[in-house]
């Protein structure tokens, strides 16, 4: 099945993979909280926030088509754009996540097709 974010096929023009980042307790050094390197020990401050990244390559036949694919992603990463469900190829769903940011992997490659690599990070904030 095709992956989607909020029902949009943002990534299906090319290959892409999902990656779930660090999960579990968030342990912080006391020295960092107190800003004092002489203090030993750590403290648990809750759980890590969910972070899921999608990395892959957008593929298009023309410059304008590739621009449209890029804009569709960056539009979702803008401030105050609401959260939604992210669904991977196998139907695995992460609910109410936001597209936090996207990074482009270098410039546009121009071979048989036009393509550009990306890494988009999703997560829950607040």
């Amino acid at each position, binding site marked *: 099945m095709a992956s989607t974010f909020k029902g949009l096929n943002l990534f299906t023009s090319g*290959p892409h993979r999902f990656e779930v980042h660090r999960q579990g307790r968030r342990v912080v050094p006391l020295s960092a909280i107190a800003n004092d390197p002489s203090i030993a020990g750590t403290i648990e401050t809750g759980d890590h926030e969910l972070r899921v990244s999608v990395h*892959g390559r957008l593929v298009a036949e023309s410059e304008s088509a590739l621009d449209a694919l890029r804009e569709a992603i960056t539009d979702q990463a803008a401030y105050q754009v609401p959260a939604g469900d992210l669904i991977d190829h*196998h139907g695995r769903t992460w609910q109410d996540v936001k597209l936090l940011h996207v990074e482009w992997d270098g410039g546009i*490659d*121009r*071979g*048989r097709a036009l*393509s550009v690599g990306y890494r988009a990070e999703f997560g829950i904030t607040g």
Partner: protein
Amino acid sequence: MIVLRPDRVEFEYQVWEGVVRVAIDRVSTRTLEGHDELGPFASFVDVARQRVLIRVTQEIDADNLEAPAPGDLGQLELIAGSGSDAQRRRVRCECVVESVQNKFSDYGATRSIVLIAQSEAGNVDPVEISLL
């Protein structure tokens, strides 16, 4: 592409004598391979950059002090024939000399010249083949 014993080879309007073969190789210098999560095989492969490499081999049977030098830019033109005018082809490309190497053996001397073709706009095949 291989041309054996071309009828004529010129580089920047200077004839190269004794050419016994010209090989034009194309290799990727940037291959893109993308995988999805449905299996082990690449679901997208593309070549975003490629190099066109031309190797000219000359048999040298006399003193020769006029070899091209790495970095020389010029038009390489060769006529590939079949012994008659039928099917004769002209191969042209603008290219840069990358290396010039001479080898000696008991049977004689050969010179191997490697050139890299360049395309003015980058989106047109630099090797142009036409029927004569």
